[in-house]
């Protein structure tokens, strides 16, 4: 068995008490409620992303687990134990924050050993556990360095090693990649995903405002807005069937158009444009139509036999003028204004060899199954 496999096995053996439960947690500063009646369960071994805009309460939720804010009402449970009244040092968690928060006067190995010493791990075990955590994060060659001698990505790896060294059942990550550039961020996401695979008993609560991080890493995503939980589900379910326009806009990009029900499987846009939608039994009154940009095609839809045809069943075909065009390397984003209301649809299509000019009349199409009707309003 190689060293890495042995380290992974040793660390897995030490991880206990995973899982987090928020039970009606409310946090307030004087009259300002920053987390409102929050209920959420993170299963042992699950990665839960808390996704939302600034001020939505996601960091407050994480700090309530860590013990840095005291709920006004409700309970926080870790590994089934009520920790609401416990101070942070007795909660048995690991935490990684955006600014790394490494101790600048300590070398890397002392940083990683800090939690082990604080938890009174036998002296003889510490060196091995430090080496194990550094090896897992690929920092085993940097034990003698000071934090200021490391790059941002390396510092964040050390911060993760420091948190993992204590073998917590719960790892809290508060925007851990926000301070890194795009290339490093992608690399660290891969590393975190690998750690998740290697440590299946470890629960992770991952706070982010970046949907791509949440979609890449999370088993489930909890979407938050204005101190409340809006939606919770797997990335796929939230992406394909968001519960609200807010969720649709925060998990992936979306065209959100004001509409009105006009039958069991159709809505009408402002100006009378009728759209066939995913069968949902219909509804009444105002609604929001959601169509993902990559599900919209440019031009007439291909007919059953191949060539384009405007009469494909269950396919919506709309006509408008190009108002925006962006080249994005492998794709083009084409924004089309629909008469008479001027509502805009953005389509993301494979790179076009001859893209349309601004103002040019074009057709766009999308399947009825890809047109999701949501409750009205609620966009961020």
């Amino acid at each position, binding site marked *: 068995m190689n060293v890495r496999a042995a380290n992974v096995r040793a660390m897995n053996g030490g991880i206990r008490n995973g899982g987090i439960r928020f039970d009606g947690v409310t946090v307030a500063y004087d009259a300002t409620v920053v987390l409102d009646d929050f209920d959420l369960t993170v299963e042992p071994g699950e990665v839960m992303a808390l996704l939302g805009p600034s001020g939505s309460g996601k960091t407050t939720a994480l700090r309530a687990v860590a*013990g840095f804010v005291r709920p006004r009402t409700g309970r926080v449970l870790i590994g089934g134990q009520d920790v609401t009244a416990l101070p*942070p040092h007795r909660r048995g968690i*690991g935490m990684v924050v955006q600014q790394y928060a490494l101790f600048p006067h300590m070398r890397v190995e002392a940083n990683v050993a800090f939690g082990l010493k604080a938890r009174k791990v036998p002296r003889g075990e510490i060196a091995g556990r430090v080496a194990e955590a550094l090896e897992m994060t690929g920092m085993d060659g940097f034990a003698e360095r000071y934090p200021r001698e490391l790059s941002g990505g390396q510092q964040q790896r050390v911060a993760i090693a420091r948190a993992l060294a204590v073998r917590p059942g719960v790892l809290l990550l508060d925007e851990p990649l926000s301070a890194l550039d795009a290339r490093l961020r992608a690399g660290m996401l891969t590393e975190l995903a690998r750690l998740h695979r290697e440590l299946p008993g470890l629960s992770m609560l991952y706070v982010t405002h970046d949907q791509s991080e949440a979609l890449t890493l999370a088993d489930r995503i909890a979407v938050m807005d204005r101190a409340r939980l809006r939606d919770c589900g797997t990335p796929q379910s939230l992406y394909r069937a968001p519960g609200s326009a807010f969720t649709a806009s925060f998990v992936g990009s979306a065209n959100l158009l004001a509409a009105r029900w006009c039958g069991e499987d159709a809505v009408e846009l402002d100006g009378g444009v009728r759209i066939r939608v995913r069968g949902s039994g219909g509804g009444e009154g105002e609604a929001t139509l959601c169509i993902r940009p990559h599900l919209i095609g440019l031009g007439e839809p291909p007919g059953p036999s191949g060539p384009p045809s405007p009469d494909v069943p269950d396919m919506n075909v709309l006509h408008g003028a190009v108002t925006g065009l962006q080249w994005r390397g492998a794709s083009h984003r084409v924004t089309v204004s629909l008469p008479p209301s001027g509502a805009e649809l953005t389509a993301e299509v494979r790179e076009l060899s001859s893209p349309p000019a601004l103002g040019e009349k074009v057709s766009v199409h999308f399947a009825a199954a890809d047109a999701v009707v949501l409750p009205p309003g609620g966009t961020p």
Partner: protein
Amino acid sequence: MTLRARAGRTGMMRAGMILPPVLLLALLFLYPLALVVRDSLSPDGAGGGALSTRAYSDVFGEASFRDALLNTIGIAAGATAGTLVLGFVLAFVVAFVPFPGSRALSRFIDVFLAFPSFLITLALLFVYGTVGMANGLWTDVTGASSGPFDFLHTPWGVLLAEVTYFTPFVMRPLLAAFAQTETAQLEAAASLGARPGRIVRQVVLPEALPALAAGGGLVLVLCLNEFGIVLFTGAKGVTTLPTLVYGKAILDGDYTGACVVAVVNVALSAALYGLYRMLLTRTGAHRARPV
């Protein structure tokens, strides 16, 4: 122009910039100091004749000098230690324990630094003097004829006054250092299982060490040369080197003896400060190591 000529010209320009302040320093500070050293080595006290160390032998033989020397070192060391401990605790509370008025208190510390030292002594006399408030309260409550507080004229009184007066000199740089400390580091330490005591010892204190050293060094030097506080509180029972200089020069007319004590005072200040810096460099060597 050749490289050598250019380098020579640059050197001359640099010398031209450095020389005026050096000359000014020599004229205003080093020359009077040299006069004091010369007079301490003059047998007749007028600066003339052959140099002699007789005045040093005479002063070193006096019991009052030895007492003053021990008082000076003891009080300065004690006051420095006291201000470091008290200043660290108070600065930590002001910086990290939120309470109403902490900002106002921080501002008051700046104002406190501008107070004259005798003002603190006077305030302590009002509180702990033989007819001060503390003794008055005691006699009112117990009916005794006098109270138990009678230490202001002892070295302990001087120590209390100096710790009270100089503590803000340690707090000021510490507060600046604490303002730079990331709260995230303290929270990360707590999440890793560290209790508050360990966080203070292993995270806060090492990062505050340079500020603590700066404040402590300043207080040590100021305490070694403190005159006003000693004169106000301990004039009857406590003599330090600065008050001995004053006594010899002004009260006794022994100008040569005063110069000897002054030279010893300066040498002591420089030596103790050097020792302090050396100790700090050793204990804080990990911070100074190039990386």
